[in-house]
């Protein structure tokens, strides 16, 4: 009777109430999605809610539905993992013995086929009757079944993520350093040999000039090492920027779609892309200036000997040294 009077006389619009609930659910979904995005990027544990699929099984699966207070466990009243009781047994029994009738009973029980088949005529009438006298109360399991069919039930899994910690970015730095430093070492070794051979060739191995040139080599080596450290840090920081941009993109997608599971999947995909090894060009020769310097000086010296250079006698034709200059 109360439903009757409410529906006929006391019926006020419920658009605002419905929209308010919908907005609360949307915000709770965004909060859940943000919690998961933050856990993925910053590390931590967050529940992941996935739309329930694969068959309605209230005895083995705990379902969650989205309410104005967030995702809440849906109490079907039959969830008891490990229990030997299976309410689907009756359906399985009838479906197995009498496939046609069993299937029909199962459909009616689920409120799918049976209701659909009978609603051609009685649906319109029942809607009118329901609107006046109210609908019959559903059991929790029937409500769960209906929500499941409507795609409103979720399953939950707590997931723990490592996140992009400082150690991750430090590893990125080390990756570049490990890549570049051996190349620099080889370049240094080659340049060092050239310098020493050239100095030895000119008899300056143990001289002040030789020490100065070796000092130049060492300082160039120091600059090259610091450049490698800076490049490694710059690449790490660029990665940090990209990851932050990816996080922002995932959040924007969360707002746009209102579907955290889709946005979170995008976040996971994006984060896995950042962890792929990149290809780097070979390290440029850090000692090219020194090598050129000594190569050029060697050529110049061969034509213009410096101070202290004793020119060979033009009459000495044994020719151990080139017969140029000294005139």
């Amino acid at each position: 009777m109360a439903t009757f009077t409410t529906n006929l006389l006391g019926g006020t619009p419920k658009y605002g109430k419905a929209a308010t609930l919908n907005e609360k659910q949307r915000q709770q979904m965004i909060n859940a999605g943000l919690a998961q995005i933050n856990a993925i990027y910053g590390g931590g544990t967050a529940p992941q809610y996935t739309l329930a699929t694969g068959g309605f099984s209230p005895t083995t699966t705990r379902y969650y539905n989205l309410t104005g207070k967030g995702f809440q466990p849906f109490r079907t009243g039959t969830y008891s993992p490990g229990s030997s009781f299976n309410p689907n047994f009756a359906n399985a029994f009838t479906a197995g013995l009498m496939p046609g009738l069993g299937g029909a009973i199962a459909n009616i029980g689920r409120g799918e086929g049976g209701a659909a088949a009978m609603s051609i005529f009685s649906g319109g009438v029942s809607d009118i009757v329901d609107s006046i006298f109210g609908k019959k109360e559903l059991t929790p399991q029937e409500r769960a079944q209906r929500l499941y069919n409507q795609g409103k039930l979720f399953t939950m899994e707590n997931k723990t993520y490592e996140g992009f910690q400082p150690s991750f970015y430090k590893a990125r730095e080390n990756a570049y350093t490990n890549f570049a430093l051996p190349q620099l070492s080889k370049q240094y070794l080659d340049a060092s040999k050239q310098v020493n051979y050239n100095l030895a060739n000119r008899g300056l191995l143990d001289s002040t000039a030789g020490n100065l040139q070796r000092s130049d080599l060492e300082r160039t080596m120091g600059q090259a090492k610091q450049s490698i450290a800076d490049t490694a840090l710059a690449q790490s920081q660029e990665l940090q920027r990209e990851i932050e941009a990816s996080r922002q993109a995932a959040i924007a997608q969360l707002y746009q779609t209102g579907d955290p599971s889709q946005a979170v999947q995008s976040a996971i995909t994006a984060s896995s892309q950042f962890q792929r090894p990149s290809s780097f060009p070979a390290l440029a020769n850090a000692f090219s200036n020194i090598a050129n310097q000594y190569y050029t000086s060697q050529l110049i010296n061969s034509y213009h000997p410096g101070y202290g250079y004793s020119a060979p006698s033009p009459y000495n034709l044994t020719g151990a040294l080139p017969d140029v200059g000294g005139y």
Partner: protein
Amino acid sequence: MSGAAGYGMIAGAAGGFMQAIAARLAQMKMDQVYQQELDRQAKLRNQAYSIWGPATEYRGVENYNRQLAEGAANREMNYQQIESRPLSFQNTYKQGANAVDQAAYNMMGQRRAALGAYNDAQLMQQINAIRTQNELNKISNFSQGWARVFPLNMYDAQHSQDALQAIGGIVGSLGGAGANFAQLNAMPQTQQASWSPVQPMWDYSQPDRYSQYDPYNTTYGGQLG
């Protein structure tokens, strides 16, 4: 004044009163919904302000200097680490930095780190700005969501007393019907309702009236009746 007129007047007044009450209640409900929306938006505004405040303080020079120092220290540590890493070659003649070269390396590293630290601080500031923006975007998003709901809540409030309004209308119309009935009863009867049968064309009990219409008074010998 008859009884019907009195009842009609009372019913009409009651119906009007109920409609006035309904309108007033609906208005109060609308006021309440509006106040709720203001409170909700104010709460979000306060949340946004409390996020904006510390984030803006983070951009100040005090924090910037601290970030510069941290960045420089981090870079110097990097330089020391890479300097101490063994190289993959065998020693050749007089290889390796002497004390002067090492001092030059350290000095160059300090200056280089101090310069590069601006990049580090800038990155921290950039990330802070992005995260602050994300938090503000969330609040803005929620605020927009509530703003979308608000007109519907106002509509509900506006129509929250429709039932009372309808009942008042019904009661008022009953009053109008009573008044009409009373008005009908109170009207003076100026004429009697009469009914006359159709006159037969011929009445054989009367003299022949046909002659009355004999303009020539012919041979029938009729007399004027």
